[in-house]
């Protein structure tokens, strides 16, 4: 399955991921020491989670040319599905023999991804008929609606499924058999396995008839349709795939953070995802890990070196900084980091 043109680069990436993980496993905290506290295991895990989301977002925005300003909603749906069905299993009437089994959270993760994908397929069928700004507006609206629904307890306050503003705490760690996939250094491998899997999936799509059809409809829907590409269906499918990936990332996030709150999945996180996608380069699968790492590093730098001095406003400044980054990238570097020669030399060896 991997013996494609991109296979070599992918294996190099996997080796790098494994090397970093191995060092952290043997001597925890090494990466943080070497980078003077800039890169923590926590940051690497969040980069991996975002990579999973960004692979989907890049297929949707960079390849199919369909903007989504609400992608964090799917991330949130996955996270809350995992949290609700593990923490509230008893209240939902799931027998303890099932809810307590090690495979239960994995099954929830899978079913959540399928359900979120199906939801996106239905929604996409309708809103992907909209073009340009209207589509952006519709996904923005979708993101806000999902956020409010999560915050308002799905409209069923007496059940208190989502925990409202405060969210859900006590999400269990993932296990395989009797072994807990923890501490952080171990969970790193889980998350990056998912990230590398998502990238393999994305690269497969890109180098396939579906990938060609996506780029084609991006260029001219009229011409793509004229040769038999079912444009509406393909757009809805890729929207669903991107949503399912975001949902998996959300589930992994919930088990990592052990707690979920709606604010993690509002508008600003959706914007953050778009910025990451643009920074890394949305027309490339490799842009996903690059964008996630670059933006998280920059945020960390800002937090420790700049915003640290103005603590009162730091929270409010984040969206402003994201907005500025987006503008600057679009003006000076529209193809993102992957378009840089040096990055291409290192990463873009395949093709």
């Amino acid at each position, binding site marked *: *399955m991997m013996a*494609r043109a991109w296979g070599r680069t992918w294996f190099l990436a996997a080796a790098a991921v494994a090397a970093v993980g191995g060092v952290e496993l043997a001597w925890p905290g090494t990466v943080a020491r070497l980078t003077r506290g800039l890169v923590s295991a926590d940051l690497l895990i969040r980069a991996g989670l975002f990579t999973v989301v960004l692979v989907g977002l890049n297929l949707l925005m960079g390849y199919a040319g369909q903007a989504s300003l609400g992608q964090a909603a799917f991330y949130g749906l996955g996270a809350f599905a995992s949290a609700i069905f593990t923490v509230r299993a008893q209240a939902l009437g799931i027998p303890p023999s099932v809810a307590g089994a090690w495979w239960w959270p994995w099954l929830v993760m899978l079913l959540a991804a399928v359900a979120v994908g199906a939801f996106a397929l239905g929604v996409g069928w309708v809103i992907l008929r909209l073009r340009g700004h209207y589509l952006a507006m519709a996904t923005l609206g979708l993101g806000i609606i999902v956020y409010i629904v999560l915050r308002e307890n799905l409209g069923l306050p007496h059940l208190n499924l989502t925990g409202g503003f405060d969210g859900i705490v006590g999400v269990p760690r993932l296990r395989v058999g009797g072994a807990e996939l923890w501490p952080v250094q171990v969970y790193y491998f889980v998350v990056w396995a998912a990230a590398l899997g998502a990238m393999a*999936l994305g690269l*497969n*799509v890109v*180098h*396939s*008839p*579906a*990938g*060609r*059809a996506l*780029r*084609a409809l*991006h*260029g*001219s829907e*009229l*011409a*793509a*349709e*004229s*040769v*038999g*590409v*079912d*444009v*509406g269906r*393909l757009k809805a*499918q*890729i929207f669903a*795939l991107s949503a399912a990936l975001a949902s998996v990332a959300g589930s992994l996030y919930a088990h990592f953070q052990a707690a979920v709150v709606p604010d993690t999945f509002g508008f600003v996180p959706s914007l953050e995802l778009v910025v990451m996608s643009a920074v890394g380069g949305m027309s490339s699968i490799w842009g996903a890990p690059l964008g996630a790492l670059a933006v998280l590093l920059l945020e960390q730098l800002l937090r420790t070196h700049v915003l640290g001095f103005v603590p009162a406003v730091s929270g409010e400044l984040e969206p402003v900084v994201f907005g500025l980054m987006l503008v600057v990238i679009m003006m000076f570097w529209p193809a993102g980091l992957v378009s840089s020669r040096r990055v291409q030399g290192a990463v873009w060896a395949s093709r």
Partner: protein
Amino acid sequence: MSRDSLLRVERVTKAFDGLVALSEVSLEVRPGQIKGLIGPNGAGKTTLFNLIACCLAPSAGDIVFCGRSLVGLPPHRAAELGIARTFQNVQVFPGMTVLEHVLVGLHRQARAGLAACALQTVRLRRTERRLREEAEALLDRLDLLPWAEVPVETLPFGLLRRVELARALAVRPKLLLLDEPGSGLNPTEKQAMSQLVRGLRDEGITVFLVEHDMTMVMGLADEVAVLDHGSLLCEGPPQQVQRDPRVVAAYLGEGDDA
């Protein structure tokens, strides 16, 4: 109307808001012929092609292809049924190579769903190899092979018309709709295009083409239909149509055409 027609347009009317672009147009295209469609600017020629390709739905009337009505079908279904087209304003996929354009044209043959693509099944890879060979053979036929790996945006306009034709042929159409295949081409390129179209007809592809260059249509078409202000003015063999006083009048009224 004869029963052996490939395409039958039956009393088709198309109105855009107030504007009637086509009014009660009836015509037919028989298998194996090259049919020309001419008429002054704004006569409704492109609109008729858009209706046949299912990019637009008629306000009234019916369009029958191979015995089945096309009305209400989405455009990709028209392609599946064997109708391929080129565009008056060339429609290419920026950033994609010439070969990739033809491969997109072969999309339908790939029969690969998104899941199969995401998992790169063995069958998919075998199909992909076969499609690539087929695409190269098609490019070779249209003398486009030297540009196979070139991104389209770097090509001169004359070649773009041929890339569009290659992409349309990849659909293996029964009916090929060409909207002004000669426009923007120099005389040599026009001749090559005419030669190509004749070759396609000889292979059994039925061609319906809109063209402003009278020498080109009259030389190519077995039969010509004339549209004016959304109505069918007349229909017949090229020489007869050319002499028809109504056609002469329509074009004289236009002034800058022909």
